[in-house]
């Protein structure tokens, strides 16, 4: 139905009668949907609005009129026809429903008092509403060992299973990995993983969310709470930049569960397991709870005032030594928009430095991300063709992967990747390439340059990709070339310099001016941080430093005179003693910057290293001052996902110790410096963003607070007309469906999210800061490759003894968040170096043997693993596992080539 509703042409409507009430319907709609619209609830178990109907459980039987009179039909499977009459509670329908419910209870253990689902259970609820009053079953029930662990996060109680196949269908249909299926037959049918293969999927938690009984339970939640003890807010997952909508639930002041909310344009109710269970990190023991300052080489607890004075002294010292350019700010991609704005304002107008970068050399140039025409996820899944030049999305942006995977059934997908990814399986064309050749490959795709002799690429595949693209250009002559094409753009390998990808993107844009881009940078609010100006040469609202100078100087005061350095530049400058002070905004460059040696050296060199942090990590271990801030589920504010969609965050628990919101750290630091940031509350900040930042004009927390803005608002708002819902079809977001996702209490029931009532009315008295004179500065637009100043950077030839390194990411790694989540930390894989089996043969080593992998920058020892899908001249390492693979990367070079040695 979701797809039909998107059609722009007004669909033909028919009349259906549900329990005597006429209802207009669209041909093809399911009876259950039409009835629901008419306010008639039909009981159900197997039906899930996000999966194909199967009509298995028979709970939804209703009487439907047909050519041969009325017959009992499953409402979840039958599609409406004109003039059809539906009786949902006639004696016959009611008896059938009661009968099915009684049958379901026949073997059900009814151990509700010890069942996680008790109190929010569709079986309980529907037994009450549509079941017989009492049981006539006096026989012995079916017994099974309970519960069994079917995967690292999932337990299964087969006695409670009602065989609805929601879980197995999710695995096969949505996640694309049928790791669980039915085994045996009839009354003995059971959900089971395959022998020797646990149900370890990045999406396994969804099966728990949609199980209509307590058969599937999640290890992190089991027995933690009862539904009636739960409190809930609606917020956004800030684990990655997809920004899935979630219900965050707590019990006794601790987070205990995340459930995916059905946000039509974003996650459509699904979550990945990292996002779903990552809340455990909030209560981790390595949280920073009090300010820390270094005394006699040790970090010791201090009061806020003392710590801030220490930072202020550092600022003054830096100013004396270097003038305004002696300070740099790294990170900020995990802050809220308001935090990021406050820090951007502090850095650029008070510290007067433009050495600011929210990315850690692992992303793409800010001008590129902000300047390219943007696509939404919906644009991508309805594109005429998708070009994916990105890392393995299942590892980095799991729910985006689910959406694109589904889209591949109808949209031709051209994947450009150095090594196969999860998406390759469903891609129509996969163009491989040797790291460093992305720009040439892109040129070949759009007919700019030869398709022959691009290292690592197969000319036949390029031909196929070109055929897909040229088939499109035939359509509609007045449309721009590339209209309807969406390019998913990210950093395929951390060991391939961003310049090559930026060059590729610029080429694609020039050849396909109608194409739009979906940026797949990974960290939760990296797009918000860039939007708020946490990047060199950028001001809030996607404005360039020079273009926005007049506007922002009028509002903020004097700005830095020149464009600053990016992350690599900052670290290089620090390492060579050209910086006095470095502020880390929740960033851990030692773990995340592709060149670990450079990062460590830089951090050790500065006079004052300040870390604004939620958790202790490798980088803030070196800091002189550590300032504790509120993290996920502890803050008000908003976040911006990879589409530019702004959604509201809501706190569910209080920050530990004396942690502050990051924006108030910026405000207090300004005050300590004898300045005023002009923001006294999250609301004033939000209104200032809405007023000053051009791309975020008209978007503030008041707007985002209404329950019908569950889907957020995509920035920038169109000039006219304004669709605040961010939905193309203009319909309002789906109501919470307790049968699709048991356990979410609806917002309507809850009232508006916390804090919503404190906001001032839209456009109200929020005029405390003066509004600048003159025209609003224009949004950044990408002028082309040259404008980026990026050209060149072509890799050297790979010599015959070397391998080109691909440095990928894995969903579960040794990053701070995963390691702070008890349930997830053990899921990080073992570090291996993957190579073609031929390479192992040549080296004379077996799978699992350690080898030495050496680059110009460093060397590591790591077990080798054969992977026949790889070319013979590349090797693959995974960033941020325990092997320190990022020590190999030379951030200054277009690619990293390595040699392998045996350790005999």
């Amino acid at each position: 139905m979701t797809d039909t509703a998107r059609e722009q042409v007004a669909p033909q409507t028919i009349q259906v009668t549900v329990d005597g009430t006429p209802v207009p319907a669209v041909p093809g709609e399911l009876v259950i949907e039409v009835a629901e619209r008419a306010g008639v609830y039909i009981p159900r178990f197997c039906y899930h609005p996000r999966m194909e109907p199967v009509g298995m459980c028979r709970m939804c039987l209703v009487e439907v009129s047909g050519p041969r009179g009325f017959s009992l039909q499953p409402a979840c499977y039958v599609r409406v026809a004109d003039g059809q009459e539906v009786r949902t509670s006639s004696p016959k329908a009611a008896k059938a429903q009661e009968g099915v419910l009684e049958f379901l209870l026949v073997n059900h253990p009814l151990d509700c008092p010890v069942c996680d689902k008790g109190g929010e259970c569709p079986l309980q609820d529907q037994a009450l509403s549509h079941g017989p009053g009492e049981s006539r079953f006096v026989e012995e029930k079916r017994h099974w060992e309970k519960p069994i662990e079917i995967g690292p996060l999932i337990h299964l109680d087969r006695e409670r299973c009602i065989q609805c196949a929601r879980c197995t269908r999710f695995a096969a249909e949505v996640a694309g990995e049928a790791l669980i299926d039915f085994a045996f037959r009839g009354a003995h049918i059971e959900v089971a993983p395959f022998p020797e293969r646990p149900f370890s999927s990045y999406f396994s938690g969804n099966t728990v969310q949609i199980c209509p009984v307590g058969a599937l339970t999640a290890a992190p939640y089991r027995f933690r709470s009862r539904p009636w003890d739960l409190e809930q807010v609606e917020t956004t997952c800030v684990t990655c930049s997809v920004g899935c909508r979630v219900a965050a639930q707590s019990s006794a002041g601790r987070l205990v569960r995340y459930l995916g909310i059905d946000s039509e344009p974003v996650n459509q109710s699904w979550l990945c397991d990292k996002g779903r269970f990552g809340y455990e990190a909030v209560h981790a023991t390595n949280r920073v709870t009090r300010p820390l300052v270094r005394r006699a080489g040790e970090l010791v607890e201090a009061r806020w005032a003392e710590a801030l004075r220490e930072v202020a002294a550092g600022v003054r010292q830096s100013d004396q030594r270097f003038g305004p350019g002696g300070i740099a700010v790294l990170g900020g991609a995990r802050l809220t928009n308001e935090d990021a704005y406050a820090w951007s304002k502090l850095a650029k107008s008070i510290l007067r430095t433009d050495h600011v970068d929210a990315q850690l050399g692992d992303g793409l140039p800010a001008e590129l991300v902000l300047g390219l025409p943007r696509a939404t996820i919906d644009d991508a899944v309805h594109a005429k063709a998708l070009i994916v030049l990105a890392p393995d999305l299942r590892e980095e942006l799991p729910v985006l992967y689910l959406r694109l995977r589904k889209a591949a059934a109808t949209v031709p997908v051209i994947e450009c990747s150095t090594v196969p990814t999860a998406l390759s399986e469903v891609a129509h064309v996969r163009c491989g390439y040797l790291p460093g050749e992305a720009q040439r490959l892109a040129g070949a795709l759009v007919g700019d340059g030869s398709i022959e002799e691009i290292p690592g690429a197969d000319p036949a595949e390029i031909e196929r990709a070109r055929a897909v693209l040229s088939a499109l250009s035939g359509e509609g002559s007045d449309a721009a070339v590339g209209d309807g094409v969406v390019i998913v753009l990210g950093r395929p390998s951390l060991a391939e310099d961003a310049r090559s990808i930026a060059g590729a993107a610029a080429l694609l844009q020039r050849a396909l001016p109608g194409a739009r881009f979906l940026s797949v940078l990974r960290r939760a609010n990296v797009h918000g941080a860039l939007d708020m100006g946490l990047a060199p040469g950028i001001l809030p609202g996607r404005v360039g430093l020079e273009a926005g100078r007049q506007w922002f100087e009028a509002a903020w005061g004097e700005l830095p005179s020149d464009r600053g350095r990016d992350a690599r530049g900052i670290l290089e400058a620090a390492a060579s003693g050209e910086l006095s002070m470095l502020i880390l905004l929740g960033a851990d460059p030692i773990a995340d910057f592709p060149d670990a040696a450079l990062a460590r050296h830089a951090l050790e060199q500065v006079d004052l290293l300040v870390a604004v942090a939620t958790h202790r990590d490798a980088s803030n271990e070196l800091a002189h001052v550590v300032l504790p801030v509120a993290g996920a589920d502890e803050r008000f504010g908003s976040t911006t996902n990879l589409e530019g969609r702004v959604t509201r965050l809501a706190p569910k628990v209080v920050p530990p110790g004396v942690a502050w919101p990051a924006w108030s750290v910026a405000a207090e630091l300004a005050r300590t410096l004898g300045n005023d940031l002009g923001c006294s509350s999250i609301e004033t900040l939000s209104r200032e963003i809405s007023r000053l930042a051009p791309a975020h004009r008209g978007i503030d927390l008041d707007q985002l607070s209404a329950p019908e803005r569950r889907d957020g608002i995509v920035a920038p708002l169109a000039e006219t007309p304004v669709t605040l819902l961010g939905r193309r079809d203009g319909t309002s977001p789906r109501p919470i469906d307790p049968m699709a996702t048991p356990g979410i209490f609806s917002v309507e029931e809850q009232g508006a999210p916390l804090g919503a009532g404190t906001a001032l009315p839209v456009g109200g008295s929020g005029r405390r800061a003066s509004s600048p004179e003159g025209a609003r500065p224009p949004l950044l637009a990408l002028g082309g490759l040259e404008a980026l100043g990026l050209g060149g950077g072509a890799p050297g030839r790979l010599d015959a003894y070397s391998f080109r390194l691909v440095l990928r990411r894995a969903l579960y790694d040794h990053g701070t968040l995963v390691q702070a989540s008890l349930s997830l930390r053990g899921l990080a894989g073992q570090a291996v170096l993957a190579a073609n089996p031929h390479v192992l043969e040549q080296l004379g080593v077996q799978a699992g043997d350690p080898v030495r992998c050496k680059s110009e920058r460093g060397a590591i020892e790591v077990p080798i693993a054969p992977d026949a899908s790889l070319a013979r001249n590349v090797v693959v390492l995974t960033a941020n596992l325990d092997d320190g693979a990022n020590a190999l990367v030379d951030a200054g070079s277009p690619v990293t080539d390595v040699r392998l040695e045996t350790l005999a």
Partner: protein
Amino acid sequence: MITDAPRIVTSRLGHSDSHTLERYLATGGYEGLRAALARPPAEIREEVDKASLLGRGGAGFPAGRKWSMLRPAEITYLVINGDESEPATFKDHLLIERDPHQVIEGTIIAAYALGVAQAFIFCRGEFALGLERLSQAVNEAYAHGALGRNIFGSGWSLDLVIHPGAGAYICGEETALLESLEGKRGFPRIKPPYFPAAIGLYGAPTVVNNIETMSNLPWIVRNGGAAFAALGQGSSTGTRLFALSGRVERPGWYELEMSKTTFADLIMDPSLGGGVKDGHDLKAFIPGGVSAPWFGPEHLSLGLDQDAVAKQGSMLGSGSVVVMDDTTCAVRAAWRITRFFYRESCGQCTPCREGSGWLEKILRRIEEGAGREADLDLLMDACDNIAPGVSWPPQQTTICVLGPSIPSSIASGIRMFRDEFLLHVKEGGCPMRDAR
């Protein structure tokens, strides 16, 4: 009346080597195919239509009509159902084991008539000898030029694959069979789509026919549809192979002219069933397999006629007739049949998966002496929740008709032998316990 109708599908079974190619060729084998290939496919379809050949798999749908429903498409399939797994049904078993070439020739003729280039025979996995002989016969047919490229020089080609089942009765249901053939779980498909002829194997239009249905085709082509239709009466034309079992003197298979022959002939005639075992009295009989409602002695005079049996509220079904005499316990019979369905339910639909087990437990409890009077109403009501109205043909709350077949024996038992059920309750067990 026992007629002198020709034996159409069992003509060769008197020979001990009936399964060999030599015997087959010596007794008119593959002549039907040669004759068919000499005519356009449409004419063959016409002959079959004229023969008014009813499907022999259970539903009794006219083969010619089914063929005419095949949606024209580039790829179409023919699938032959040889999964025969219902208790007391053993006619396809016989045809596969004793005359495999006849099955194959019929299949080739049907494929030719339908313009299909790939056919499958899905054969019950437990038919070890049958599978061996069927496979052997397929190889021989290829060698003989009756299968493969350019069959008998006609320019037309067909491939035939034998697929062994994996031990599930439900895979005899045609859509479960197709799923199984595709390598999936044997779950019947939900309707719509209503017919495999529209969307069948791998989504392509597919005709599914029974083994015995195929076995009739060589004769029909050789003798003409009219000759076939001249046998029997009304819509029940030709002969049919009946499997007789239970309390009779001479259980076994009998090919009889339809409609004109009666149940009394089949069960009682000395040349056929030879009467109820040991001179006992007939108590009841099942006219068409364990899915069918039971008949009493008053129905003996009924002809072996699809419509006549249907009119009396049962079916000829799979052509297996089971005889119960006065030593047969009605409760036990219903329980054993229900236990079969309980074990064979695929488990998709709640009413069938859970209902079958519940009914089985209640029946066993009654048989074992722990029954309650209220159990009778409970049984009937639970049956009603699987097949609303508990009538025949059944309405259903399920995906396929296995579920609604479960009530047949239970409702028959209770309706015909209520006192016997109550006696079990009163006496705390089976009154016939000692007679066995």
